[in-house]
């Protein structure tokens, strides 16, 4: 899962709006979202229910096409990408982890994990071999031929993560990945995601649990279809306020202090 860590914007959203209903019942699930996510970021999106987190994730994941505004994926406007190509991108570039796991119940574990490979044109046998390899990483190789209902919640979510990663995607979208898990399983899953981030993947995670934001490099809170706060934006003004020479001086002073301490 090693990818380039060059900080280029992978996702760029400009004045993104998503409307539900018509006439009197018209509501905006997203009401002018501007967001740029760079390569290798671990973004946690928080907010109350109905604030548009999942809708935003669905649009980023190319599942929802009916929106207003601009969406650029890898600096390419999504509107200009054909439906078929978008489907291909979903299988190659994007890995989706759902809250309720969303494994296909009538397929066994290995076939579930191999699904994205199938749609990116990998022959059946080869795709099963790759799926088996990735299940080994998640310590699930002994459960390859189990059916989803025979596994525990934590195991199923690990299968779902394995499936999301099988095509080596650069963007991983996780919609409340620990929402249906106990704290122990949640911890394991979050460690897995943290490891993926260390490997250089871009992770966008929707969560209700504030504790999980500690794993993220950037936290966005949403309210009524708009971005309320963004830790990225908060950092910027501080940086501009502090003049660089001052920082350098502080650094030098600190370095001198440290040297003295060591002696």
């Amino acid at each position, binding site marked *: 899962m090693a990818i380039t860590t060059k900080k280029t914007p992978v996702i760029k959203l400009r004045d993104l709006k998503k409307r539900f209903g018509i006439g009197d019942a018209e509501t905006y699930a997203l009401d002018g979202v501007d967001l740029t996510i760079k390569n290798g970021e671990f973004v946690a999106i928080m907010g109350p229910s109905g604030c548009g987190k999942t809708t935003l994730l*669905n649009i980023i*994941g190319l*599942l*929802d096409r009916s929106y207003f505004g601009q969406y650029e994926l890898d600096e390419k406007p999504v509107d200009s990408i054909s*439906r*078929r*190509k978008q*489907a*291909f*991108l*979903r*299988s*190659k570039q994007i890995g*989706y982890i*759902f809250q309720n796991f*969303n*494994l*296909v*119940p*009538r*397929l066994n574990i290995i076939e579930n994990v191999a*699904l*994205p490979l*199938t*749609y*990116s*044109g990998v*022959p*059946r046998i080869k795709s099963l071999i790759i799926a088996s390899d990735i299940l080994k990483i998640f310590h699930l190789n002994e459960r390859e031929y189990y059916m989803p209902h025979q596994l525990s919640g934590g195991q199923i979510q690990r299968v779902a993560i394995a*499936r999301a990663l099988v*095509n080596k995607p650069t963007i991983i979208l996780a919609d409340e990945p620990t929402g249906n898990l106990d704290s122990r399983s949640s911890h394991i899953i979050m460690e897995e995601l943290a490891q993926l981030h260390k490997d250089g993947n871009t992770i966008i995670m929707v969560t209700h649990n504030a504790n999980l934001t500690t794993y993220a490099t950037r936290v966005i809170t949403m309210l009524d279809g708009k971005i309320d706060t963004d830790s990225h934006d908060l950092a910027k003004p501080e940086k501009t306020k502090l003049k660089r020479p001052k920082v350098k001086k502080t650094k030098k002073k600190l370095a001198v202090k440290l040297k003295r301490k060591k002696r």
Partner: protein
Amino acid sequence: MTRFLIINHIHNAQQSLESSRVRSALTMLGVTIGVASVTAILALGGGAGRVINDQINMLGGNIAVIRPGATVNPISNITQPQNTQGYATSSLSKSDLEKLKKIKHIDSVSPLMTLGGTIKADSPAPANTKILATTPELAGISNLKMREGQFLGSDINENSAVVGQQLSVNIFGTESSIGSKMSIHGQPFVVVGVLKPLNKPINYNSVDYDNAVIINYSMGEKLNKNNSQIQQIDIKADSINNLNQVVKDINKVLLKNHDGEKDFSILVGDQISQPTSQLFYSIAGVTAAIAAISLFVGGIGIMNIMLVTVAERTREIGIRKALGASNTDIMYQFLIESLAISILGGIVGYVVGYAIAFIISEFLVFSPAINWQVAVTAMGISIVMGTVFGLYPAIRAARSDPIESLNRHN
């Protein structure tokens, strides 16, 4: 972006069908019945056709047959019985016969006129006994061989008759009935010859010679109140190479004689070999109707089950789309599943159809034809059914919205 998903789709279809075996089997049953009916009709029809074809080929292939009425299209030819004995007046007349005899390259011409009426002899004749009035040339054209005695001829008495062997046994109690007397339409006749058994009740003349009385054409006219009711004229060309020219000439002569009205048809080769048995056509017609209804109902069954399957798997469709399946991928997945049902049903239907055909053929004089055309037709029907009736559910599945599908709880 080359994708080879067919194997996956087939695997998927297999899993899906296996997971609901009873439902799949019941859905297949509709296709099976339809395809079995079609297979049985074609196999038996082909068998009957082959019998006549063999006869024509055996006779040298230089036979042409003229029948009253314009040529009908092949479909109604299959589904409608030919009017060989109906109340309609035949458009072929004695004057046609005279004109035909003058055409070049024609070796012999023989009119066939079947009459109704009772035959009285030592024992009464079976109800389906045919009285055929014709000319001596028929023996040459149809290769009729004598068991004993002689065929009709200009040199013998007008009241002579030739009988089939089986009829001879039925009405006189013996195979050697020469000299025996009988009456047809109240007229006395004397048996001058008994035909060799042919055991070919189906032939291009629509006459079961083993159970027929053959009398002189002129006598037939007399019995029919001097009306010539010609059901068919058999023509034998002097060579197979001249047959085409002969057919053209016949067409010209008859058109002229009929004031330009094309109220006759000239058949050669395969056209003659289309089975002429009325009973066969009636059975084939009924079976064809059953097959059509069964196929339609079977198709509706496939569509119904596929719609249920799509509804049941809406969430799966959403997951697959989220993982990279395009609309086309989803459409093919469900289309291949419906094709799997119809093709499997078709294969079973093909086997059952032949089993039925072989059972029926036990009661007939010919065996069903086994040829690639029947197999291709059965397979073709199955594929067309699977595609036509599976397309709508497949398109519906492909067009479903991924987010709505993912939110569906089933």
